[in-house]
């Protein structure tokens, strides 16, 4: 069975929950309910911090409700991923010693989805004989757990073609973590093909300021103590023009010019805040760490429908150190962003915390 499915969308499927939309070309991506967006700023300014917290199920109706969030973009994101992988298979790689970790993460994802979304996913197990049903993608697969010859792809690629978010698998040895497998089709401008095989400090090397602040030393120390069954999460964020999921360095010459297309008239619609909800899981057999980098996009128009977020985003973007705005790739459009967002900032105080209603 091939997973390069043609998504025959009918709005009636699944009560019309999943959106038929694109992350390229005509860019029809929209958020059904912007208040569900994981707004990443819990205060009016931003500086790097380790900011790791336990990844426990959170508030209903938010991206934190379940361990792995499956939202209305699921089918469209998986379609976009299949297109990216067809164009460039180097976006999904696993070094030979990482197959067991691939099985670990396949199990983690299948269990979580079958538990939290039984209407869409189910997993039947009889010893190592497993049957996995993914109704939104039309998949019904019987296979033998830990026997890669029974799946159409390696275990990591198989489950990643059915899972939102970029993921990396990190092997632990010599007192550090090594990014020895990964998939990157919705990345914020880093190359999996270049970075695979690097250790924790090497793949973070290009990030400005954070090394000097000791952020990566502390984060690594924390992650090496990560326990199975006690996942953690943190936020990262950047800016993207158009709801372009795949902002890879590989294709930068193709999408780079979009950054120059922003005007005062179209910025609300075109400029998107790009949030990475990152979660980390210790895997039971391989002792590797799975790192999920889940990307959420919201246009400025959508964000300012929440007055607290409009005020706060204006203050964060305005006051961000120049080095960070440069590294995050939006220094050229920052003046335009600040001017447009200022309309939504009346100077009123904002409540602490992320959520729209707090």
């Amino acid at each position: 069975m091939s997973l390069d499915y043609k998504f025959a969308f009918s709005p009636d499927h699944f009560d019309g929950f999943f959106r038929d939309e694109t992350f390229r070309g005509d860019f029809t991506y929209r958020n059904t309910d912007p208040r569900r967006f994981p707004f990443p700023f819990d205060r009016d300014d931003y500086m790097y911090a380790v900011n790791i917290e336990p990844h426990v199920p959170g508030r209903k109706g938010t991206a934190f409700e379940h361990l792995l969030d499956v939202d209305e973009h699921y089918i469209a994101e998986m379609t976009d991923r299949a297109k990216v992988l067809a164009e460039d298979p180097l976006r999904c790689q696993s070094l030979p010693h990482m197959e067991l970790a691939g099985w670990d993460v396949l199990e983690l994802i299948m269990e979580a989805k079958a538990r939290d979304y039984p209407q869409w996913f189910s997993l039947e197990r009889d010893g190592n004989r497993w049957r996995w049903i993914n109704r939104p993608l039309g998949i019904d697969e019987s296979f033998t757990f830990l026997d890669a010859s029974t799946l159409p792809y390696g275990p990591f690629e198989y489950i990643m073609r059915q899972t939102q978010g970029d993921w990396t698998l990190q092997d632990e040895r010599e007192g550090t973590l090594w990014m020895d497998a990964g998939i990157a089709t919705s990345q914020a401008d880093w190359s999996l093909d270049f970075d695979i095989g690097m250790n924790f400090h090497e793949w973070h090397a290009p990030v400005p300021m954070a090394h000097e602040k000791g952020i990566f030393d502390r984060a690594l120390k924390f992650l090496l103590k990560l326990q199975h069954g006690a996942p953690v999460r943190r936020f990262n964020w950047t800016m993207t023009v158009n709801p372009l999921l795949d902002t890879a360095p590989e294709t930068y010459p193709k999408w780079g010019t979009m950054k120059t297309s922003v005007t005062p008239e179209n910025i609300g619609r075109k400029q998107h805040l790009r949030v990475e909800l990152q979660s980390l899981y210790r895997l039971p057999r391989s002792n590797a760490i799975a790192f999920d980098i889940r990307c959420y996009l919201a246009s400025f128009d959508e964000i300012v429908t929440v007055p607290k977020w409009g005020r706060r985003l204006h203050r964060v973007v305005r006051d961000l150190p120049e080095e960070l705005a440069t590294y995050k790739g939006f220094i050229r459009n920052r003046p335009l962003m600040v001017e447009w967002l200022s309309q939504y900032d009346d100077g009123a105080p904002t409540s602490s915390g992320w959520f729209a209603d707090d």
Partner: protein
Amino acid sequence: MTLTPVAPTIRSRPVYAPLAAVPGHLHLVIADGEGAEAVTDMLERAPDAAGFLALTHFLYCPGPTGTDLSDRLQALGAMQFFRAPTIPALLPRLQRVLTDAHMGSRFYLAGSEGLIGQAERDIMATGFPFAAIQKEHRGSTLRRVQCVHCKGITENVATDPFQCSHCGLNLFVRDHYSRRLAAFQGVNIDAEDPGEVPESVVRFT
């Protein structure tokens, strides 16, 4: 001539230290160009240079700017000496020799970063961690750069930006370095404003 200094930069950029002879069953010494001087300096400091040389296999080629100190190395009278005309011609021999390397083999790499990186990559492929491999950068600072767009590698890059020898894009040279590819990263400099390419400056010689 001493160790080529590397300005402090980002954490993925390799750093180097002077070679030091350590006890071992086999000394595999791989060098190009001015790297030969790193080897002779090491031998001057070694407590038992003759004993070291009796267990040494040299693999050497001229450096990217033409420096050829083959005669000086060959005259040392090591167990084995091999001269290749270029790095690509040296690597098949290295890969063959590595099939016989076992616990107690010692690795010493010296010369250009292109030579050091590619030899390190091949040694690591046998299971030795990079931290067990000694490396001393000498001579040319020309860089081996992978185009992140087309994946082609351009050897001996001198200027920044430069034109990818495979796809023709204008690339700026980052310090971000991959041991797996033995290459620095090149990224299109005019992706956002096609045609606006800053004047190239010679950064590597």
